[in-house]
């Protein structure tokens, strides 16, 4: 117990929370912007795994971080584009298309990994690159704060900057207004001349690009290789974070909460507490959070009516 407390109340623990939160935050923000535009879907898992894979392959064959990043984005955007084309143009059910694309991405990445490396599990035989660690000039010298906040992967900082960017795009730009209008009432939007399908499509692509960054972080930051199904539900957790949060800042807080549960499960595992009970924490927390949040929304609605 003493060990546990020591492990939790430390700067290293805060550092690890931020580290595991990063992909959840990217996924959460991606889901948030999609939800605002009325195109929330469940293909983030597939987008992220494809981006993770393409990033590794791109950087390994070009030995350029930029090419890695761009190919990761391209991979994620391809899945987003397919989702957009099928759900918006061909009017396919978005959830079912999402399931299909997740299956496609999970199988397709392993398929390509095998074709490229003759390995179905890991990409360790590819000499891929990782994004650099950034030390923040003044903060890194402050004792506890420095350990916790400085020395993260550059994409971690990008993810937190994205919270601000998503807020600005949604609430301070004309296009953000259009996204929200389409999300709230597409008939009204189309009646004043907004091209609904186009706005939805662009929203999907923006959301896909953000999620792709999360995928790229997984294989080129969090780890330095691609592993099959390495997203492991993080895309789904991002949707849950968005569901709990609802706005950029609160989505970040929700993502940090899931990050805390994840980091806690990592710590507890090293202390011989049955791993399964700890691994299940984030998912149970999400379920409780969903019930509490949706429940409070429902009460509000009823109160308003009466």
């Amino acid at each position, binding site marked *: 117990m003493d060990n546990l407390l020591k492990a939790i109340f430390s700067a290293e623990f805060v550092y690890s929370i931020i580290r595991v939160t990063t992909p959840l935050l990217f996924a959460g923000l991606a889901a948030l912007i999609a939800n605002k535009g009325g195109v929330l879907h469940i293909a983030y898992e597939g987008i992220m795994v494809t981006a993770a894979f393409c990033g590794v392959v791109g950087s390994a064959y070009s030995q350029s971080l930029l090419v890695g990043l761009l190919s990761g984005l391209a991979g994620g955007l391809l899945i987003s584009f397919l989702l957009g084309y099928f759900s918006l143009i061909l009017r396919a059910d978005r959830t079912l298309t999402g399931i299909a694309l997740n299956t496609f991405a999970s199988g397709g990445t392993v*398929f390509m990994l095998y074709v490229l490396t003759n390995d179905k599990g890991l990409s360790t035989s590819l000499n891929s690159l990782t994004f650099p660690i950034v030390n923040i000039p003044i903060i890194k010298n402050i004792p506890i704060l420095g350990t916790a906040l400085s020395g993260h992967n550059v994409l971690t900082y990008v993810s937190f900057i994205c919270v601000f960017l998503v807020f600005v795009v949604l609430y301070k730009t004309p296009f953000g207004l259009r996204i929200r209008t389409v999300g709230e009432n597409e008939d009204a939007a189309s009646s004043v001349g907004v091209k609904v399908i186009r706005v939805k499509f662009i929203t999907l692509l923006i959301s896909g690009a953000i999620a792709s960054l999360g995928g790229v972080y997984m294989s080129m930051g969090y780890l330095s290789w691609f592993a099959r199904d390495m997203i492991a539900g993080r895309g789904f957790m991002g949707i849950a974070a968005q569901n709990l949060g609802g706005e950029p800042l609160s989505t970040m807080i929700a993502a940090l909460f899931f990050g805390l549960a994840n980091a806690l499960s990592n710590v507890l595992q090293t202390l011989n507490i049955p791993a399964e009970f700890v691994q299940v924490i984030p998912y149970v927390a999400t379920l409780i959070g969903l019930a509490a949040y949706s429940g409070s929304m429902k009460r509000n609605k009823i109160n308003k009516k009466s």
Partner: protein
Amino acid sequence: MLSRMTNKNNVEKQFEILRTLVAIAIALSIAFIIILLISDNPINALASFVIGPLTTTRRLGNIVEALIPLLFTGTAVSLIFSANQTNLAVEGAFFIGGVGASFMATQLNLPPGIHLVVALIVAGIIGALACGIPAILYIKFDARPVVSSLMVNYVCLYLGLAVINHVIRDPAAGFLASFKFNKTAVLPKIIKGTNVHFGIFLGIIIVILGYLYLYKYKKGYEIRMVGKNVDFAKYSGINVNSVLMSAQLLGGFIAGMGGAVEVLGMYNRFQYQKLTGHGFDGILVGIIAKNNPKLVPLTALFLAYIRVGADVMSRVSDIPIELVSIIQAIIIMFVVAERFLYKLKHKKIVSLSRNEINEKEEIVNG
């Protein structure tokens, strides 16, 4: 008037079938193209994929073995999706059902037959609980079942693994697996030289019961009505919440039982380490079958066939079995794409209506 309606309905139905067939054709063509592009010996790979499953008794058996769990999850998904609930917890229900059955099969001593029935029922109840959680969250708290059911799947996985790892783990097994099942609880094999087991009969019974329930009983009609138009169902005096609940509990029960049949029929200990994918395969089966259990055996057979084909191919050639995921995904996407082949359908309906107008005018004029 009546004949016109049926004519149009016929066109709709024909196009549903056409679209499904075209979707399958596109998916298989893409698969063939991938094989041609990637394989060093494409003819061999293609041949093993297409006719490989038919070449030996063992492989024919493999098809039936792969078919059995899909009969359960396909029927479960048909029930749940008929109520228009995107509850994906079938996957978790299948897994935790298998765990529950394994617990019963290793810990109890009961007479043969009764032991099996007890294990199946317990698995079903646990599966129903799994699918019931998203249902309750939706009914009580308005939480969309998509996200909550995905979370439930992971909860099922880790709780199930906890039971296997800390309660019924056999340390002598050499890997993470349960104790061996008691002989009284396993499903007997029925064909020599294969692993085809008694579960095939149970699966067929479940499909038939599922069909009768959904299409011949009042309860099933209510489920479909709620799925088609919730408001209409409400105004016709149907208790929507109870219908939603019963559809998902039943679906979960069938999925949990499917998990039990799979582990007790195919293996002698529980040895899964992660979710098996049978639930998501069931979703594919349900979608192609248009949520009608009557068509589940056919679509399940198709899926089982390409599974075994890809398995054979991955063993004799350089094409990995993951090709199946790609085929599956393409099929789902084209089958659910409403506007795919829409123009063709539209033209057909227009020409049909024109003919009818002409006929009418002839009658009036004549």
